């Protein structure tokens, strides 16, 4: 029974991984990755890692993949012309050869290992192994520093993503106009007052294509009341 479940989950994981690389449409790649992650969760369950499997399904296949789907839907429709085929020629051959060589090397390392325990199914573990109780106890006692550093890392990543992706933020080069109102309600933050006054969109300047086709872009930043004041 375990063998059957293992082979079903392993074939699902590998086919999902191949689908991520093979499919041309990024949306289908994301769906293939969701399938891959669900198969991996089954593998984790077979390895007595219940909590990690549950976190994989809820956090990874749920939340992170929803983020991916949002970005693909946001970027994908307008930029379909830029979704090119994978690289061809020598780089493709080199990449496939590199991947094959890496797999052969890893397989030699695994199968030729001197670890005798690799040929067993692992020791028998007690009933709560891999459950939330043991994971929580390890995280809050032995790995407390890693736990806290991970929380800081998540905070920094969230702030960084907001700074990068907000309108008129991040990598735009334009002189900052500092006022008290700009701290409370920065221009381009997408507040309701801006939407009512029609000041939505990002002023396009600097390098990049100057064509502003697509969404209605209000790039007359000089006439907005924000800068007149």
């Amino acid at each position, binding site marked *: 029974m375990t063998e059957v479940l293992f082979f079903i989950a392993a074939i699902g994981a590998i086919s999902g991984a191949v689908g991520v690389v093979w499919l041309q449409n990024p949306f289908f790649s994301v769906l293939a990755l969701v399938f891959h992650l669900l198969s991996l969760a089954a593998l984790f369950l077979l*390895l007595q890692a219940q909590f*990690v499997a549950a976190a994989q399904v809820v956090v990874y296949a749920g939340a992170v993949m929803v983020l991916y789907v949002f970005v693909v839907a946001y970027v994908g429709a307008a930029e379909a012309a830029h979704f090119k085929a994978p690289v061809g020629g020598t*780089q493709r051959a080199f990449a496939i050869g590199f991947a094959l060589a890496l797999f052969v090397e*890893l397989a030699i390392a695994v199968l030729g290992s001197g670890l005798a325990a690799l040929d067993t199914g692992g020791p*028998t573990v007690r009933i709560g192994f891999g459950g939330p109780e043991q994971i929580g106890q*390890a995280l809050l006692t032995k790995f407390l520093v890693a736990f806290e550093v991970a929380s800081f890392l998540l905070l920094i990543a969230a702030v960084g993503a907001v700074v990068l*992706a907000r309108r008129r933020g991040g990598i735009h080069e334009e002189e900052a106009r500092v006022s008290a109102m700009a701290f409370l309600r920065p221009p381009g933050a997408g507040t309701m007052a801006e939407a009512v006054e029609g000041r939505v969109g990002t002023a396009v300047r600097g390098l*990049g294509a100057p064509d502003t086709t697509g969404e209605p872009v209000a790039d007359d930043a000089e006439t907005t009341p924000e800068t007149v004041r």
Partner: protein
Amino acid sequence: MNINWYLVVSALVFCIGAGGVLTRRNPLVVLLCLELMLNAANIALIAYARMWGNIEGQVFAIIVMVVAACEVCIGLGLVVAIYRRRLPIDVDELRELQG
């Protein structure tokens, strides 16, 4: 099942992800292939945790998942920022840092 089998699956998924990173041009798909490589590492970590009957490898896998979530967050923020500047979403054309 023997632990060997899980490690071979891990190696195979890692190599598929590495090949994808090298062959795809869309930064979104490159990020997806990076996810594949991180997940392959997670399978190996959890297989070793099972092999030793020890919980610590699973804690390591959870930390790897946190780091992967942060990487996705920043990577997708960069993709959105690139899109807002009307630059081509193609890692072959965004090569200013290459020198």
